[in-house]
């Protein structure tokens, strides 16, 4: 077990634990903070996977921008208390079971994929090597092969912008 493995397991555990804490925390602010931790952990994974640029972007966009926005809204709406009333236990249980079912059924399929159909045998990720995660390569591809989606996503932003304005304005 080398460092990569140790880091992988550590980050995985951290991710899952933080994620669990996101949904278990009573206080929304805590949830946000736990979520930010998740993002950090995932960024760690990205670094392990040699996707450095994404790791940075993830931190900037998600942990930096998006989560701050969340925090901001929570503060704005004054929800930073443990105000959430008790949700029906049965609903919680049912929700957990449904999610669990999903997890089990899908992972079981994946498990099958590696055992009976041998689809995933010997498929490993390249750790810490390769250059596709570099900003240079990504940028080149983005502005050559992926220029169309890139341009088109501007429409998306436009509409989101318009929308946010329409919805967000007080009147």
């Amino acid at each position, binding site marked *: 077990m080398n460092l990569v493995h140790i880091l992988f397991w550590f980050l995985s555990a951290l991710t899952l634990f933080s994620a669990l804490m996101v949904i278990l925390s009573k206080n929304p602010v805590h949830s946000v903070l736990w979520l930010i931790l998740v993002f950090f952990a995932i960024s760690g994974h990205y670094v392990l996977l040699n996707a450095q640029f994404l790791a940075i972007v993830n931190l900037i966009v998600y942990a930096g921008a998006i989560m701050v926005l969340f925090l901001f809204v929570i503060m704005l709406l004054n929800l930073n208390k443990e105000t959430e009333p008790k949700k029906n236990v049965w*609903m919680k249980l*049912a*929700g957990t079971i*449904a*999610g669990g*079912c*999903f997890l089990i*059924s*899908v992972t*079981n*399929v994946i498990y*099958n994929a590696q055992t009976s159909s041998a689809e995933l045998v010997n498929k490993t990720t390249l750790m810490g090597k390769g250059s596709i995660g570099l900003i240079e390569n990504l940028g080149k591809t983005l502005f050559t092969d992926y220029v169309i989606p890139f341009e088109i996503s501007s429409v998306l932003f436009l509409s989101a912008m318009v929308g946010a304005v329409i919805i967000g304005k007080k009147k």
Partner: protein
Amino acid sequence: MNNLIYLVPLLPLIGFLINGLGRKHLSKPLIATIGSGTILLSFIISIVLFFDIKATGGKVITAFTFINADAFKIDFSFQLDNLSSLFLLIITGIGFLIHLYSAAYMDEEKPDHYARYFAYLNLFVFSMLLLVMGANYVIMYIGWEGVALCSYLLIGFWFKNDNYNYAANKAFIMNRVGDLGFVLAIFWLLTKTGTVSFNELFTDATLAKLSTTDITAITLLLFIGGASKSAQIPLYTWLPDAMAGPTPISALIHAATMVTAGIYMIARSNILYSMSEVTQHIIAILGIATAFFSATIAIKQNDIKKVLAYSTVSQLGYMFLALGVGAYTGAVFHVMTHAFFKALLFLGAGSVIYALHHEQDIRNMGGLKKKMPITHLTFLLACLAIAGIPPFSGFFSKDEILAVAFAKNPIYWVLGVATSILTAFYMFRLYATTFLGKYRGTDEQAKHIHESPKTMTIPLIILAVFSVIAGFVGVPTVLGGSHQLHQYLSPVLSAEKVFHLEHSTEYMLMGITVALAVIAIFYAINKYSKKPELNEPSGLGKILANKWYVDELYDAIIVKPVLALGSFLKNIIEKSGIDALVNNVGTFVQYAARQLRLVQTGQVAGYIMMMVLAIVVFVLLWFYDASILKLIGKLFY
């Protein structure tokens, strides 16, 4: 000559149309003239045709193709031969007399009803002529139903009275039972032989296509038709009820002509019937049973027309007995003589009823002998004729039947004689109660009693003459005659069975019959002329007076169950069954709609959970239940 044949049925039809359409505009005398005149013309033509046929033999003429559909080729054609021309004479002759009689009898009716009456009557004659002139079973069937219709219309002529309407319905419905048999027989014949025309059917080649079973079935089915029309057990109950119609109708339709249609039909099919022993036995047994059974009922009836009605049923039973034992000529002979004397009886009764202002209960009559001499005399002659007293016509025809019955099976004869005795008894009971003794009505009523007008009495006289002499066309060899009728009909009734009885036996049989009848007559006159039976009968008498409760029995075993079934189907099966099933589908959909609506809880978490679960189900279906899917798939592939 051929065109004359068309005229025979056509004239009554024209009369029907004129009277029917012009009923608002024609005067009564004109109506009567048209009504009777057309029949008279038909009668005259019938006479001409009769002699023509006698000279040249039978013929078939085709008016047009009635139905020509694949294997069904049915011509609208008439067959005029010895048998049918004889019937033509009876129908138009007696028909004319009854028209004449009706002119006076129905005088009280308003002109439009008067016209309606004559129109119906003409239509009846037309139908009856179709029936006997038809050259195939289908045309016969047309007439067959036509007479049933006219019978229905005329029984219910006074439609304000609901009982009459019931009787009319009953007559039609019971006739329909027979019609079903008839029509099935037609199909059977058509299916097996491809023809229903008499000439083609009654050839050896065609008959060879029929197996014994076929013949038995066909003859039995036809017999059902005959039995319903001619009021045989078990389909006779309509006839007594049919007396609801005006009395001339009873005379014409329910005594002289229509009810003999069954006999005519079987006589016409004699070749078929002779080929089936089974059917013949059944006919004979049912015939004699009817004869005896209805005679017993007649004993205790108090309605003058009811007595005659049961008497008619009884006499028809005789005729069927004759048919059953193969004495077709005898049957036709009796039809003929019966037509005269029974028409006479009814008309006489009508005369009485007319005189007594629609009083029909003999218990309220009596002593009419002096007030209505012509009616009385003619009625007496008719009674003697029906009782079988020589030399009146009834004697000859009845004797012939009894003789053949004896030859076939003495039991038939015994019952026949018993019936004959009963006949004599009840006829003279009727006679005595009506004409002899003292008048039992009020004096006021008595003053108004008078003999009927000429238009009524003349037919009575003519019929009386025929009742007396008609028998002489069939004087048997044993009495020195040559039985002209037999000779005349032999070309048509080729399947006639000839029995040879010892002359001594025949004499003996005649003697016994006549003697017993005479005793019965005297007993009856003696018993009833002085002290008529006015009280309600009891014991057996009550049962007889109530007609053995057959109507009640039918009501219980047929009418009520049918109605109950109808109600059951209507109220239970239709409403709570099929309709409810259909409606329940709707209700279920609505119920399901209300329940399914509740799934839409408005809770986002719930919705999402459903989505997640659906995905889980998809995944499971896909990956883990291939074998189950295979199974389901097999069902649809």
